[in-house]
């Protein structure tokens, strides 16, 4: 073994082992590289497992499409004129459901967080509804809403509602009572306390709820688009399953994952831009 050939290798491995080194020395680009490498490594492991038809008993890759096959399916979808329609229908549904959930969730959360009376009246039924999975809502959604489009939006709404609601309640209840007392001593009435203290005080928690809610809304997309339709990424995924086109399932899953991640990050970015005073505590090194 020659030292010369080893050196760059050890350096690279050492850097991989200590992400701290990246953060301190390499900065943002170093961490980005590490993250991309992580995704690449996962894809490589997946390719290997499906190429070798790995069978571990509990889990088997015998019928799992390989990334290369998924890439081919992705390529054909990218060239299809339907892609834009799939994406735009899905984005519109998630967006409508999310906006509705944000309005309802924040409003209810503020009321429940502020008043014990509202908490006693509103929270019990909501707590009963909360554990019900989106898929169980499908029949009722179809019965309740004459338009299948609205039924689908309702499912994405249900998906986003509870994280937003609960984080808002949590944020309102977490506002320091001393800040409220101080505002009252400085001449604030009920409405001023609400607008000047409760809302901004709960804002970081609300943004967290919105960001999680955006993710869970995408999470429910396949469920929502099972209801009907001819377009939508969830519909594309579900339809691929029914016609046993497994490569396309993977492509659909990836689209949902990427769009969900992207829109969640967008919500967080927007939130942070609106709260320049809020520095995330305890940043990881």
């Amino acid at each position, binding site marked *: 073994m020659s030292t010369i050939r080893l050196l760059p290798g050890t350096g690279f491995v050492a850097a991989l082992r200590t992400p701290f080194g990246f953060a301190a020395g390499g900065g943002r680009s170093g961490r980005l590289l590490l993250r991309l490498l992580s995704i690449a490594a996962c894809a490589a492991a997946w390719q290997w497992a499906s190429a070798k038809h790995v069978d571990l008993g509990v889990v088997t890759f015998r019928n799992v499409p390989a990334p290369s096959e998924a890439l081919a399916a992705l390529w054909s979808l990218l060239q299809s004129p339907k892609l834009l329609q799939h994406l735009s229908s899905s984005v519109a549904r998630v967006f409508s459901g999310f906006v509705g959930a944000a309005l309802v969730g924040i409003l209810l959360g503020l009321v429940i967080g502020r008043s014990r009376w509202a908490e006693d009246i509103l929270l019990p039924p909501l707590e009963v509804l909360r554990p019900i999975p989106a898929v169980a809502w499908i029949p009722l959604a179809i019965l309740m809403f004459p338009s299948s489009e609205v039924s689908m939006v309702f499912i994405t709404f249900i998906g986003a509602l509870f994280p937003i609601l609960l984080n808002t309640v949590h944020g309102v209840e977490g506002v320091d*009572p*001393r800040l409220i007392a101080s505002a009252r*001593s*400085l*001449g604030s009435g009920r409405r001023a306390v*609400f607008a*000047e203290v409760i809302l901004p005080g709960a804002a970081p928690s609300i943004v967290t709820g919105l960001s999680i809610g955006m993710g869970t809304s995408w999470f429910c997309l396949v469920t929502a688009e099972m209801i009907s339709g001819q377009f939508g990424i969830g519909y594309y995924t579900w339809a691929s399953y029914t016609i046993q086109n497994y490569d396309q399932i993977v492509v659909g899953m990836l689209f949902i994952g990427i769009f969900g991640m992207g829109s969640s990050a967008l919500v967080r970015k927007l939130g942070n831009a609106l709260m320049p*005073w*809020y*520095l995330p505590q305890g940043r990881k090194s």
Partner: protein
Amino acid sequence: MSAAIQVAQGSIEIEHLHIDLGTGGKRFEALQDVSFTVAAGEFVCLLGPSGCGKSTLLGALAGHLQASRGGIRVDGRPVAGPHPERALVFQQHTLFPWQRVVDNVAFGLKMKGVPRDERRRRARELLALVGLEGFDRHYPAQLSGGMQQRVEIARVLINNPRVMLMDEPFGALDAQTRLMMQEHLLDVWSRVRTTIVFITHDIDEALFLADRILVMSPHPGRIVEEIRLDFERPRDARLVTSARFTALKRHCLDLLHPDGRHPVHRERLSPLGDVAVRGLRFAV
């Protein structure tokens, strides 16, 4: 000093004040039959160990706690709730983290409907008074503990309070900064002559600042002695080494630690009281 800062002076009368805190079986008498008066423009320190009810008394003066019996009057008017005329300063600052320093200070004027430019101009004047020119664009989290308390003082002074109620405002600062802040407070008070009721368990602090000390004792909270201080003003740090200061300090030590024993440590009560904190949900 700017002529814009004219502060009214408030006199305080407290008569047979009793305050019970807690609910049900945990209810206890935090204050028992407390009576005293404070003259307009006077600087009074309430001195006592943790749990002696001094913060409870301050909370009642601020209007955040209800008297169980007895009453409090400021300039002859009964205290019925929080009011900008009775400013409250906590041990830990209560600045809004989401507002810049200048808007925190201007908050009281915003509540009065003063236009933004005007209230920011006044806020900058007060920041200058507490020695914080040039920090108006900072957020509270970007300031040190001592600076945050200066901003807090500027924020309550903008309302021209008759009375300033201070609950161990320098208790969380390091010794060095605390000394600086004590001198600073006296300097501000010499220019803005409001009435101050200042709570502390630090004997040196009480002796250095006050015109008069009311010594409190716990279980139930009550006033056990009144000490008038006639040290000349302006006072500076040399005072604390004078013979008379030391003698009075010994006297206070004897009052607070009879038989030389240390008092049992009790949980610190908040000026909002347990009851008030829960009640605020409805009150606000």
